[in-house]
């Protein structure tokens, strides 16, 4: 997809003026976070399971080459094919070749962030193959021609009224000529329209939440059942997955499953978890005849062995964005690429380049809630800090920002001078503030004072208070 991360500031400014988005984000803040906390508290073993899930992923990442080869061998043994794709372009071409081989005209699609990453829909359409999203959220944003704004609720930014308009506009061709306003009926309409598409599609493309090395199985998790119809009805099933999705055994998947849905939607278990292994067997009476796995690297192998490796533990539950005050304020589209929220701020600089995404690591208050709720305990704030350091060192941040940091660094390295300067600053600021104790404007501080006053510091500096306390306590 088109990267607009460079415009993070403009994007977020616009987002914060959008009334519909404000309402939608309010629902994210309430709904998902409460549900997660209830689900976590109802399972006494939840914290230990998070540790175990982290350990399983770490072990895989240490030996990723071996696990991938093992997985490949098992897929092949079950009659499927693995396509190792180094780049997004390789993946698109591999998918196109499979579609061409079966002369595909239409492709149904289950929800897959990797196909967003490789911008598959636009590509297939340009090659004369019609991609049809089947997850309701993905379907809505496909009609709206927008990217997803949340990794598990792609249309979370859309209101019911907007869905009404979209369906009214696009469903007339199927005989739905009234504006439908009841959400239940809207879902029914999408169900009816898509039902026939499942049956007539030539190829079904799904993502994968996990790849199981032991059995060569791919696993999808859905609530709607769209993924299952997508993969069991067409003659060809293509699974598009990135390489860090591999998990050693079915037992290990069971462990990670226990933290996935609870962290994502607060469900104990998603409605449908499906394990697919190879094409239909000789005596099977349904199922796809061809089974392909597109294994995408897309910049991930370069993260192995670096401070970014821990990001590859991510199981894409969305908990970090559900709990992020910055995401709550600016929404998913502001981040300007496939992955929004803290995980996006941490991973997009690697995927699209730090120059393009340099604002994203700054879009954090470092409150640490993302790390607190991450089911596989990814130290997101630490990784955001890493990117900030790199932006400084590689001189990607603009000069005034770097000068500011250098100036602060100069003082911070000289404690006596630092204390002297802060004491002076405190005095100066309270003098400037006068009786009111508030500053209406501040040189270099317009970003703050243009919308609110700055309260002047009161009393002594932190160090002064600290020393006083130490003396008092002897």
């Amino acid at each position, binding site marked *: 997809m088109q990267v607009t991360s460079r415009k993070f500031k403009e994007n977020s400014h616009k987002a914060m003026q959008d009334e519909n988005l404000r309402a939608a984000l309010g629902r994210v803040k309430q709904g998902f976070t409460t549900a997660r906390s209830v689900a976590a508290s109802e399972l006494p073993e939840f914290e230990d399971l998070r540790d175990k899930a982290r350990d399983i992923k770490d072990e895989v990442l240490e030996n990723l080459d071996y696990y991938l080869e093992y997985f490949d061998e098992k897929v092949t043994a079950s009659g499927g094919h693995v396509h190792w794709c180094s780049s997004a372009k390789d993946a698109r071409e591999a998918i196109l070749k499979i579609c061409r081989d079966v002369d595909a005209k239409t492709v149904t699609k289950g929800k897959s962030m990797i196909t967003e990453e490789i911008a598959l829909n636009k590509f297939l359409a340009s090659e004369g193959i019609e991609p049809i999203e089947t997850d309701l959220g993905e379907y809505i944003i496909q009609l709206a021609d927008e990217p997803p704004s949340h990794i598990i609720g792609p249309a*979370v930014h859309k209101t019911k009224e907007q869905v009404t308009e979209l369906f009214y506009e696009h469903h007339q061709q199927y005989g739905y000529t009234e504006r439908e306003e009841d959400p239940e009926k809207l879902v029914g309409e999408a169900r009816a329209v898509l039902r026939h598409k499942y049956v007539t599609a030539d190829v079904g493309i799904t993502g994968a939440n996990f790849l199981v090395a032991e059995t060569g199985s791919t696993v999808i998790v859905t609530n709607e059942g769209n993924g*299952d119809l997508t993969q069991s009805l067409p003659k060809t099933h293509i699974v598009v997955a990135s390489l860090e999705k591999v998990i050693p055994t079915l037992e290990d998947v069971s462990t990670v499953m*226990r933290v996935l849905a609870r962290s994502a939607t607060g469900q104990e*278990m998603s409605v449908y978890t499906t394990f697919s292994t190879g094409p239909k067997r000789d005596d099977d009476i349904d199922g796809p005849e061809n089974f392909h796995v597109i294994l995408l690297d897309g910049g991930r192998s370069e993260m192995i*062995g670096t401070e970014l490796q821990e990001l590859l533990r991510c199981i894409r539950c969305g908990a970090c964005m559900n709990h992020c005050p910055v995401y709550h304020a600016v929404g998913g589209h502001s981040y300007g690429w496939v992955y929004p929220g803290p995980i996006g701020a941490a991973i997009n600089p690697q995927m699209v380049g730090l120059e393009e995404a340099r604002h994203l690591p700054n879009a954090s208050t470092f409150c640490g809630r993302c790390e607190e709720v991450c089911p596989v305990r990814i130290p997101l704030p630490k990784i955001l800090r890493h990117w900030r350091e790199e932006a400084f060192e590689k001189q990607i941040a603009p000069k005034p920002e770097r000068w500011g940091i250098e100036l602060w660094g100069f003082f911070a390295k000289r404690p006596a001078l630092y204390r002297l300067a802060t004491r002076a600053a405190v005095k100066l600021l309270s003098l400037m503030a006068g009786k009111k104790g508030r500053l209406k404007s501040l040189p270099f501080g317009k970003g703050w004072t243009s919308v609110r006053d700055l309260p002047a510091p009161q009393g002594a500096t932190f160090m002064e208070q600290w020393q006083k306390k130490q003396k008092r306590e002897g």
Partner: protein
Amino acid sequence: MTGREKILGRIRAQKKRGALPADQQDLIAARIAKHEHNLIPKRGQIPLKEQMDLFQLKMEVLLATVERVKEAADIPKAVQSYLAHHNLPTRIKISPSERLTDLPWSDIPTLEIVTGVGAEEDEVGMSPAFAGIAETGTLMMASGAETPSTVNFLPENHIAVLNAKDLTGSYEQAWDALRLATKDSGIPRTVNFISGPSRTADIEQRLIMGAHGPKSLHVILVGDGT
């Protein structure tokens, strides 16, 4: 260079090593082959009678319905009254499994029984579960010649038959049972864990049932495990 060589080469370069030495490969292969249970929540590790209650409770929370019958012969009657009660058609698509085809359907002549794969026009589908998992109220369905997976998804309404003796406490125990049952043929093409009927919250986070899969799920729990 192939994609495979590129990717493996990069991973190994990042790890500053070549392919894993043979002894380490053997260790990991043995670890996979052992497929050990990890931490299993205590919640499901209870006697079968209590597991049946837990399974039913969890399923009902997920907005599925559960009905208990004494023995398999009671199923057709139970199906008939369920369909009548919910004003559903009497034509049922059933999996071509002896567990269903051998039931005394002739006792209930008003029911039209059709065997085969799931189809677009099916209003009611019925299939046998391989196992049940009490921990979260989950069915394990295994595909095969007699158990096409489309029957679980295409019909508007899904009835699943679960024998109480096939109820387990955890996913891991269900995998153990499946491994044992398929040790010659290997894992089936499709294994579905199903926890309740289809739903979506993609419009303003409102829960709406019947997104793409069945709008209702009715589980008939057979026997008491003895």
